[in-house]
Structures are given as C-alpha cells and as structure tokens.
C-alpha cells in the first residue's frame, strides 16, 4: 500500500483536471484562463486538462464576485466534484468583491460559500499566475491539505 499511496500522491500532483466556473466575472479572468490552453502557455504540459463536467474535475477555478444567482450553482457544482478536491479563486473579485463590493446583487465573498485553497490576485491575473495557482492547488491535493480554510472555520 505504501507504494500505491506514493504513486497516488505523485499522480494527484501531475494530473490536475480543472473545471472553470464563472460566478459573475467580467470575462477578464476567463479569457486569461482560456489563454492557458493556447500554445504559448499550454497547460497540458503539466498534465492539466479543462473538463466539461465537474464530476471529472479535481480543481474548481472560480472567477467573479459571486452574484446572488450564481451562489447556489457554486455550492452545487462544488458538491459534484468528487473528493479530494481543491478550489482556486482566480482574480480579485472572489477574494474581495473588487469594484463590485457593496452591490446588492453580489455576495460578500467566496469564502462564505466554498472553502478556497489558493487565491490568485489580479484584475485579471496574468496566465502564468493562474497556472502557478493551479500547480499550487495540485500540490495541496497531493499533500492532502485542501479545504484548510473550511476546517479552520469549523474548529473555531
């Protein structure tokens, strides 16, 4: 079992399949995630694939400030990803609300809805930064350290 678990650890780090969820983004972050597929950034090099179904994914990329109408979808899609899973908040919006903070149609931040493992700040962040965020999340997956914000909140 020791051998299998160490191979499993390596596999989790080398095979991050992502699902991208636009939770009210202006598209800025989404087109930079789209650029990751292009030959210049080619995220398949690190084994990353963009999946169409959350059931096939390991990492949830969330963009946008979480509009009221998308919050339930975020919860449901997060629940559909099989364990172990990680969440990467791409851009400043999910972290702080960015310029949309204070709007009546926007939630107060993504952490109220799902546990975030990696924040990638920027408006929008550069593709390299997003890729680094995905790699960090894959590393946390391999180490079994995802969902820590959530767990800390529950221990309080």
């Amino acid at each position, binding site marked *: 079992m020791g051998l299998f678990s160490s*191979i*499993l650890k*390596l*596999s*989790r780090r*080398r*095979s991050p*399949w992502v699902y991208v969820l636009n939770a009210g983004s202006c598209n800025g972050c989404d087109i930079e995630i789209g650029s990751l597929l292009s*030959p210049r950034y*080619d995220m*398949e*090099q690190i*084994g990353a694939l963009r*999946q*169409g*179904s959350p*059931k*096939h994914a*390991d990492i949830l990329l969330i963009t946008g400030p979480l509009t009221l109408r998308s919050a339930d979808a975020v919860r449901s899609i997060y629940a*559909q990803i*099989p*364990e*172990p899973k990680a969440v990467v908040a791409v851009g400043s919006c999910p972290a702080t609300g960015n310029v949309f903070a204070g709007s009546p149609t926007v939630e107060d931040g993504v952490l109220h809805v799902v546990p975030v493992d990696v924040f990638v700040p920027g408006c929008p962040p550069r593709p390299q930064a997003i890729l680094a965020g995905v790699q960090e999340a894959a590393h946390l997956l391999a180490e079994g350290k995802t969902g820590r914000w959530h767990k800390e909140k529950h221990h309080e």
Partner: protein
Amino acid sequence: MSNGLIQGLAAYFLWPGLLAGALLGWLYLWLSRALIARMQRRFGPPFYQPFFDFVKLLGKRSMVPAGTAPLLYYGLPLAAVISITLALAVMPLPGGLNASFTGDLILVLYLMEMPAFCDILAGFASRSIYGQVGSSREAALILGYSLPFIAAVSALAIQADSFRMVDVLALPFGPVHVLAAAAFILAVPARLKSNPFSIPNAEQEIVAGPHVEYNGPALALFELAHGLEFVAVGALFSVLFIPRLPSAGLNLVLYLAAGLLLVLITSVLAAATARLQIHRAFRFYWTWGALAALGCVVLAALL
C-alpha cells in the same frame, strides 16, 4: 492441465492481455495526445500522463449518481475492460496464447464491440440527458462504422474460407488485403471516437456524453478500456493484414508498428478536422464505407 491454465492466465493478465495491453494503451494514448499537441505547435503532456491520470482517478472517492444501481455503475466499465482484455488474450499475437479454435474471429469481433455497448448502456443508465443523447449518437455511429469494419474482416474470412484467425493470418498477401485494409482503416477513427467522429463524446454539445455522470474509479476503468481498445484495434489490424515473418522478434516489431501506424493516422486526422454532425458521419459510412465494404467482399468472392 494446469500448465494450460497458467498459460491462459498469463495470456489474460500479462501478455498480450491486461498488463501489456494497459501499458501499450497508455503509450498509444500519450502518443496520440503528444502528436496532436506537436501538430498544434504545443509540447503536450509528459510521457507518463495517461498512467498518472488513471491512478489519480482510481484514488478518488466515487459518487454513484442518484437513481443508478451501483451494480450497473461499476459493472459496465468492468465488463468493458474484461471483454476487451479477453479479445486481446485470444488473438494469435507473437508470444501469445495462440489457442486457435473455429470461429475465434467472430468471438473477437463481439468482444471488441463490448466497450461500445457498455458505453451506450452507461449513458442510458446515467439518467442524464447528455448521457442519453451521447448514447443514442454512439448507437447510430456503431451502425455506421460496423459496415466497413465487418466487411473488411469478412472479406478475408471468405478468402481464407474460415473464421479462424490463424487461417486468415496464413493467407498469402493479395489485392483483397489492400482493399480490406482500407475499409478497416476507414472504420478506425469512429471506433476510437476520435475526430471527426468524436460525436458521442462531443464536449461542446453534450459535455462528456455517456460518461458524463461517471467519476473516480469507474471513470478510470472506462479510460483504461479506451486505451485497451486502441491496442486491440491495432492487434486485429496486425493479425489481419501484416504477413507473419519467421522471426518472432520481427513479428513483435511489426505488431507494435501496426499499432503506432494506426495511432499516427488517427492523430493526424483528428488534428486536421472539425467534428462532423451525426447524420453526416452516418452518410459518410453508408456511402464510402459501403463502397469499400462492397468492393472488398466482391473481390474476395471473385478471387
């Protein structure tokens, strides 16, 4: 007695069955992805990628979708892997079992069709509308590509006057081989659901098609079955169309070369095309596929 059993188990689990098939399947899957990436001026995934994807999926906690019987959910991908491995094990490959019997060719054809049937059932069992549309598309596609595929195999069987693979293998190379090989290759991209026939799993239309509700270990088994299908198609191609040489080593090289050739053809085609609509794919197989089928069967009957 037990010697035969050990040989059988070895053929099933080691060579040319599960272990060798899985390793070769991963190699082919990687090669296909890497070739497509290179044609798109990308690097593509590292060599070990399909293996790591498989292990990672095995290590995920699976969620059986509500309304699907767990037996069906795990049974279908397992059945796909078991049957395609059996097809590999009974093929007269260099270093294989070579336990030839009458009608083994027909058995292989049925066994190779199993993963597709399991896919279709999985799609319908998933109770997802995407899965159901994917399944009905796959069923329609089978009706299309089976025509040239079965005709290619039958043409050689007619010529050999036998449905034993060793008899077909012993046929002297002739014009029927050329035409039948063409019909066979015509059917390969659709069999492997690669572009332009990636219709049942068209991501932009129906997400992941029949596999949409599958996750974790069950999805890993389906992916493994897909890799094994790649290998089985290559193996059958080498059995049918590559003449055997006296040296076992050379035969082995030829067997691998046949598989690589099919990977190359499907990858180039996949990189150069857009996805067809299902009715166009169907029409393609019922015109060009039918012509090739008719051609090789008539030629085989005449010669």
